[in-house]
């Protein structure tokens, strides 16, 4: 527990030591640290699964899964679940959110510290169940979408799908409690003068994310419960023979599933905004537009779900509506992109590792965003639905973009969290290896998708061999880049320079977390800072 060692020398604080400090923790920083460690562990699980799939797909034929294609399906299911629910969400919301929302708004801790603890442990239990589901029976070969009837008892007769359902129930309950905690904290515990319109954009992002979680996750929980009773207690919500409808599941799942992708990317928006502003040494351009663009994305995100169901047989008028609504999302996302560029415009930009990742994020998000504009059209979905084009699109815009924000956030905040600074040289090398890796990995998948290669298959017709090979080479580079990141973590705790400065980034870093010592002491903002009237910058605490 390297994080612990770094913070533990803070002798003046009264807090439990040893395992009790962590297991019983009610401290937002310790819980944040535990979330980040959980995400780092889960990322190894999710990463190994994806590497295994990519190895299989390096060339045509069944290399590792001959006669074991159910295992392949289970692995692709677990890869999706683990990365979404146990890597990105814990790292961004549980990790950075817990650490920096209270610090940024001048609050001593989260509103409900004990609930914060149970949120974490529910998530950890969920990860355990999810990993176990792979070893139960034949494994859950349903995809993360868990569409019935494939996920029903008739086609997945063992308990693996039930393990998956309960894993999501636990993680979902943890997310809902966490969301309540963030909303209450942000609404009630801002320091004097920290009005909503002076909050840093990361806090805005977390606020919108928390509302999305609160409204979307219960829908998933309801749908999962219906599936659970279909499987175990003879109900027929999704069973045609009993008067149910498989399409009901798809509507419920995507009513959750589409906001879920914004739950993943909104915190990333927040992190990127902080980083871009800090290293351009300029306040965020169009602050209010940025904040309300996120609110708009959150609202519109709830009324576009059936663009995942264009080929499911929903009516043509429904498809026309969902096409129009989906296209509209491009407008607030465009505002985000242009505002980041305008923030950098006229700036005095320092290309430190966090900034490299922020620029990399913009690159990925633009490339993935424009293919989203293509996929929004129901008419073109006859060609692209369920192909690798979709895989390329969502990995660019959501998955890898989110990872870039997480890496960027880690480099940005590690000195505050650990009291040690990363090595700039190592970080730059790590960035370039990872950046090249993911682009070589995912860009050719656009070609495969356009050419008609379906997703979720362990073997493919020989004509698709070329780009699949290139993609796997990219995966190998990405694996190296990922391992380098873990090395950088180790290197930082072992050899990283001790940071005595509260603010290592200089004039650009204006948010409140840079006013407390590094590493942040166990308790911060015990005396509330007072925020001055000059925009959303903070002023020195009043005496």
């Amino acid at each position, binding site marked *: 527990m390297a994080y612990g060692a770094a913070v533990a020398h803070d002798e003046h604080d009264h807090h439990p030591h040893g395992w009790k400090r962590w297991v019983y923790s009610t401290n937002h920083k310790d819980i944040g640290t535990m979330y980040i460690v959980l995400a780092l562990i889960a990322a190894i699980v999710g990463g190994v699964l994806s590497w295994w799939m990519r190895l299989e797909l390096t060339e045509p034929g069944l290399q590792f899964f001959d006669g074991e294609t159910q295992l392949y399906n289970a692995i692709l299911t677990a890869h999706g679940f683990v990365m979404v629910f146990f890597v990105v969400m814990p790292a961004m919301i549980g990790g950075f959110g817990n650490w920096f929302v209270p610090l940024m708004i001048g609050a001593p801790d989260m509103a409900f510290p004990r609930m914060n603890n149970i949120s974490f442990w529910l998530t950890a239990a969920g990860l355990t169940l999810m990993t176990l589901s792979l070893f139960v029976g034949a494994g859950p070969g349903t995809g993360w979408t868990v569409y019935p009837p*494939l996920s029903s008892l008739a086609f997945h007769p063992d308990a693996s799908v039930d393990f998956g359902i309960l894993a999501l129930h636990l993680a979902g309950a943890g997310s809902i409690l966490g969301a309540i905690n963030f909303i209450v904290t942000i609404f009630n515990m801002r320091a004097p003068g920290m009005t909503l319109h002076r909050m840093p954009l990361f806090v805005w992002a977390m606020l919108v994310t928390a509302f999305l979680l609160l409204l979307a996750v219960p829908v998933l929980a309801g749908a999962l419960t219906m599936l659970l009773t279909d499987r175990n207690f003879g109900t027929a919500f999704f069973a045609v023979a009993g008067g149910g409808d498989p399409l009901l599941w798809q509507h419920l799942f995507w009513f959750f599933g589409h906001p879920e992708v914004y739950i993943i990317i909104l915190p990333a928006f927040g992190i990127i905004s902080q980083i871009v502003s800090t290293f351009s040494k300029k306040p965020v351009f*169009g602050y209010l537009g940025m904040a309300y663009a996120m609110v708009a994305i959150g609202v519109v995100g709830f009324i576009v779900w059936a663009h995942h169901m264009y080929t499911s047989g929903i009516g043509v008028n429904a498809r026309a509506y969902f096409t129009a609504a989906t296209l509209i999302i491009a407008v607030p996302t465009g505002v985000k992109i242009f505002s980041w560029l305008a923030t950098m415009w006229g700036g005095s930009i320092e290309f430190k590792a966090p900034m490299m990742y922020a620029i990399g994020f913009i690159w990925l998000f633009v490339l993935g965003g424009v293919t989203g504009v293509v996929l929004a*059209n129901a008419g073109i979905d006859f060609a692209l639905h369920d192909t690798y084009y979709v895989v390329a699109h969502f990995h660019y815009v959501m998955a890898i973009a989110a990872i870039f924000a997480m890496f960027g956030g880690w480099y940005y905040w590690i000195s505050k969290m650990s009291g040690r600074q990363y090595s700039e040289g190592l970080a730059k090398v790590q960035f370039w290896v990872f950046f090249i890796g993911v682009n070589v990995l995912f860009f050719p998948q656009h*070609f495969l998708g356009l050419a008609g290669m379906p997703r*979720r298959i362990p073997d493919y017709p020989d004509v698709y061999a070329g780009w699949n090979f290139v993609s796997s080479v990219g995966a190998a580079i990405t694996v190296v880049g990922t391992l380098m990141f873990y090395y950088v973590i180790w290197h930082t705790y072992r050899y990283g320079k001790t940071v005595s400065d509260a603010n290592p980034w200089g004039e650009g870093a204006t948010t409140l977390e840079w006013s407390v010592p590094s590493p942040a002491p166990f308790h911060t903002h015990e005396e509330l800072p007072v925020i001055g009237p000059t925009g959303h910058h903070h002023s020195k605490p009043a005496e």
Partner: protein
Amino acid sequence: MRRVSLETVFGLIALLVVGLVLSGGAATAAEPVPGLSRPWEIGMQPAHSPVMERVHEFHNLLLVIITSIVVFVLGLLGFIIIRFNARRNPVPSKTTHNTLLEVVWTAVPIMILIVIAIPSMRLLFFANKAETPEMTLKVIGHQWYWSYAYPDHGDLTFDSLPIADSEIDVKAGQVRLLSVDNPVVVPVGTQIQVLVSSDDVIHNWAVPSLALKKDATPGRVNETWVQINTEGTYYGMCSELCGVNHYFMPIEIRAVSKEAFASWVEEAKQKFASRPQPAVAAAQSSEQ
């Protein structure tokens, strides 16, 4: 110096745009197997149905738009990186607002979206249903094969099973993971209404070069249509995760002339006669 480099940059960008557009357009020249992709393909498969032709047209438009957006935004990003790095611009400006700029970057994307939405809707409604279908093809998905029925041709019904890798006959033109024992045969130049359903889990009946892609969902009959322009073989794969053999559930369509289709129907009736048929269907076929 600067001018030359700028021209080079623009040249490269133009090349990229042209390349992407051409690749998106894809060659429409006749090939031995019209409905199969090629190695190292970077665009869509050639179009062989009215819907796919329109998908191509629309995708070509989209590709120009999205490529221009990417070039513009990333070009801007590149310019900012060069112009506003700390070395060249040591003192940052304090600009945080520009109302006109903010209105423009909200309004221009809306206009671009309108340019996209109009042809998008046209394509969607065109692709929805056959206006005057001349025949119907029923497609039923099973774990893990398709079966086809021709209700207008004596309810001719048969199963279409994939051919194992070890039995693939390359010389006979069979393709691994794509060829089946009994391809579904249809006439060219004929508007065909396609009804898709399933008797177990959800599958998806998809043929990329014909813009066919429809979920086969138990308890539901989904409708789509196709009119094939050229004779030849068209391949597709199941496009909704359906279990262990999802990857090995190919679709093979053989489009033939109307005359050849008529004689195939007679042969097929003999060939598949031994298959047990529902009583109603059997009665219908004896009437004809």
